């Protein structure tokens, strides 16, 4: 009993610490955003293509999409990026996060000297599913933004602003006084990564748990069931890559049926924005939450018909491409290299 109480208290402390780190990091990023403006100009981060390419590359650097989406919102709040660029950067961060899953999959296969690229297959599937949904969703989102979609949705978190200021104000002011802006920005990034690490640590040990997801390596679930699992698990973990990694202990043996993979990723790709919505409410820009909500809505609108109307045709198409891309080392290398070139090309546009 004592042990249980200690674990519960530790987790509460971790959640509180994670929230504090998250809020503090956002404040530091906002204050330091002006310091990265010269860097962004030097990298040609301008316009939709630039925003998307930057979001993609940055997700590769920090190995996650969620912190990059939050960073995009702080850059919006600081006036460093405009609404369209921020929107594109958030979308790019998702593609970059999926690319990270692919790279980790490739490395996993190399490390284990697997002839069949079974881990890379998961990465290719994650990236394909994300790209197929996100690219049109972003296009749809731009149209929605221009036509005033969710124009009334302006959560600025004023209610919590004074609380945030009370909690982080002295620290932020001291940091602003002592550190150059660029360093503040970097400290903010590290703070965000630390916050997500703390949130991950709070997740219960699922290794020993049963439940339906534990059978995802053996049982062939209906697509909408895995879609709901993906939605649910990622709503808790906040990150698609973490959500996919959560499947590892859940499936106990570290493998999953191909058929269960794509709907899970589709669901995960929607609720991964929950923390970004939260960040949008905290950064204090009237458009921040709206941008995230529009992208989230567009991704949902495109994902739902895939899962409910033509899941098998979609599954077949994705599997065919993923099988081709992972057929041998050369094909996989070409695929990864081509995809690595995409964000660079976007930045160069």
């Amino acid at each position, binding site marked *: 009993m004592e042990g249980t109480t200690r674990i519960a208290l530790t987790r509460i402390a971790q959640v509180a610490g994670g929230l504090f780190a998250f809020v503090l990091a956002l404040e530091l990023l906002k204050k330091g955003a002006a310091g990265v403006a010269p860097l962004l100009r030097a990298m040609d981060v301008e316009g939709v293509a630039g925003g998307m390419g930057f979001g993609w590359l940055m997700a590769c650097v920090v190995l996650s999409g969620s912190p990059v989406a939050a960073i995009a919102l702080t850059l919006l709040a600081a006036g460093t990026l405009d609404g369209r660029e921020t929107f594109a950067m958030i979308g790019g961060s998702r593609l970059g996060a999926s690319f990270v899953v692919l790279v980790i999959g490739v490395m996993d296969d190399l490390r284990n000297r697997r002839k069949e690229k079974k881990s890379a297959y*998961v990465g290719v599937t994650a990236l394909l599913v994300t790209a197929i949904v996100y690219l049109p969703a972003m296009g749809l989102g731009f149209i929605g933004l221009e036509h005033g979609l969710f124009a009334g949705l302006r959560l600025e978190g004023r209610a919590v602003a004074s609380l945030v200021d009370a909690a982080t104000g002295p620290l932020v002011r001291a940091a602003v006084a002592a550190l150059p802006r660029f360093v503040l920005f970097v400290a903010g990034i590290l703070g965000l990564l630390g916050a997500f690490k703390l949130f991950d640590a709070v997740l219960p040990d699922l290794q020993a748990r049963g439940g339906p997801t534990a059978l995802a390596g053996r049982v062939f679930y*209906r697509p909408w069931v895995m879609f709901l699992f993906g939605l649910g698990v990622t709503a808790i973990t906040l990150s698609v890559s973490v959500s996919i990694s959560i499947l590892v202990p859940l499936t106990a043996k*570290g*493998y999953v049926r*191909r058929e269960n*993979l794509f709907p899970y990723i589709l669901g995960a790709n929607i609720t991964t924005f929950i923390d970004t919505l939260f960040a949008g409410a905290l950064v204090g820009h009237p458009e921040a939450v709206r941008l995230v909500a529009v992208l989230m809505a567009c991704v949902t609108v495109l994902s739902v018909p895939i899962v409910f109307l033509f899941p098998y045709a979609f599954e077949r198409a994705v599997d065919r491409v993923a099988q081709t891309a992972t057929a041998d080392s050369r094909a996989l290398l070409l695929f990864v290299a081509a995809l690595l070139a995409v964000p660079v090309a976007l930045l160069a546009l």
Partner: protein
Amino acid sequence: MSCLIYVDPSPRGEWALALARLLLSALRPPLVLLATDEDVQRHPELLEQARARLGRAEAAALRHRSGPAERAIVAEAAEARPDLIVVPPAGRKAIARMMRGSRVATVVRKVQADVLVARRPPPAIRRVLAALSGGRLTQTVAEAAARLAGPLGAELLLLHVAPEVTLPFAHHPAPPAPAGAGGETDALATVRAAAARVGAARVEAREGLVVEEVLEEVEDGAHDLLVLGASSARAAQGWAVEDVTERVLLHCPVSTLIVREVVDRTITAPPER
């Protein structure tokens, strides 16, 4: 000890009769020919013509029940308890199937017998494919396939599709339950053991989506008959679990035998000596 054949007045009904002649001629089991009341009213000679077509006047009982077909078959199966039911598909297109369901899927779900779904039969059955998961029905399905292929002199291929992929991020990634040498999985080892028990059947292993790979092998290998195990009760009744057998069945271009776990195999078993 009986075989129930559903007699459909459409051209698909002829498929069922032709396939029954092809597969059951050596075994000559007692037959029940079933039609719906509505079809018999429209075509009074339907059942007699079917019996003549089979050339089994002495051993074919004629029955009719109120339709639709699936209801009649399920009711007759519950009463007569046949070992095998031969049924042609209703030929419903996607929307009709969405509205009314699939005849063959309904029959497979609701009866306790093996079900042979009859599609346009070839002149002779030369190649039989058995798709095996390596699960509890593996041996039963392999044996049923071997019993059909043997008397026909058909070539038998046992196919196992491995759908698993390894998740990245795993600290100790493990392939699905490795067993034996050569990195073979337990499931594939079970399939090979079943192949050894039924004789000289070939075994092929594929990786990919189960439904797609099975259907691809049916086409690529020009197989004349597919043999599958019935879905588990969980898949057949569970709202969350996909019924793989049903999906293969609905899309398979050739006749398909669905083998059940607990059936008195007097039809598909070899005749007693």
